[in-house]
């Protein structure tokens, strides 16, 4: 079924990949990511009959649109106002570090909301972000034990062990993607990178606007 002659070779892969996922009844990551590009609601888990003749690019291009960044910036500004009003720890001294961490978490949560729950990393962020920081130290201990078995298994499958190791490192960097297969992981990673880039752009714009607004003496007292 792979011998579908297309001018764009990668397109054929994506089409069949999503069909394969659909017909397996497994997770529809490819299908959902691609159908998102068309603007349809990707809530349907069993859309097996749909033709997946779509480009894979629009699912990433949405992170570059002005509209998306504007929506994200607005949400982030509102979240920042809430951060300012309620100091995180409630203790006597709201340390700068605690506040910047609260800002970072608010920004990440807003980013995950912007993804509209269609990717694993966004759902992992929304469903309990603190776990990532706390569990990480303990995760290092079982790693040496399991990695040799995983390396052997990977070598059996023809994938070099170093590749597997690097993929695991990458999986740890993206929230919620520790135990994914390589194709799924790469899909999540590309979406995550596009989202992070938008986050950086939006936060830079807000910071610049804030510093400009605060330094200008024409701010109206409200």
């Amino acid at each position, binding site marked *: 079924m792979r011998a579908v002659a297309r001018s764009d070779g990668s397109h054929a892969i994506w089409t069949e990949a999503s069909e394969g996922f659909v017909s397996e009844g497994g997770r529809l990551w490819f299908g959902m990511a691609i159908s998102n590009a068309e603007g349809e609601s990707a809530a349907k888990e069993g859309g097996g009959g749909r033709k997946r003749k779509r480009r894979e690019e629009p699912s*990433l291009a949405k992170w570059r649109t002005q509209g998306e960044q504007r929506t994200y910036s607005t949400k982030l500004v509102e979240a920042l106002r809430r951060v300012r009003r309620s100091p995180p720890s409630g203790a006597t001294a709201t340390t700068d570090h605690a506040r910047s961490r609260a*800002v970072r978490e608010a920004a990440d949560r807003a980013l995950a909301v912007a993804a509209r729950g269609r990717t694993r990393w966004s759902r992992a962020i929304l469903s309990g972000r603190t776990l990532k920081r706390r569990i990480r130290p303990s995760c290092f201990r079982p790693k040496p034990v399991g990695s040799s078995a995983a390396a052997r298994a990977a070598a059996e*499958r023809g994938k070099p062990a170093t590749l597997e190791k690097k993929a695991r490192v990458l999986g740890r960097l993206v929230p919620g993607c520790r135990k994914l297969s390589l194709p799924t992981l790469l899909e999540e990673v590309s979406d995550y990178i596009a989202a992070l880039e938008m986050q950086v752009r939006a936060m830079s*714009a807000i910071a610049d606007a804030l510093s400009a607004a605060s330094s200008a003496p024409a*701010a109206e007292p409200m």
Partner: protein
Amino acid sequence: MSSRRSRSRQMSSSRITDEQINDLLTKLQAVLPEAHLRSTDRVSAAKVLQDTCNYIRSLHREVDDLSERLSELLANNDINSAQAAIIRSLLR
């Protein structure tokens, strides 16, 4: 399910061809910075993964720095509604 026999079905969770991985890596490499510097002939999987890890780490660092900057700006002055309107208009 973990058999390595070639099956008629292309994409199963146990049989992932190198070609598919290569395609995914090429696509990933395209979004990394300095993509225009690389030749499009071969993609070294380890290098792409390593570059991706480094890029994600640098993006995380940037977000952390921006969070610090924003928190400092917030500490000095709250975002009142006038400034929020200013910000929104600047972002438009």
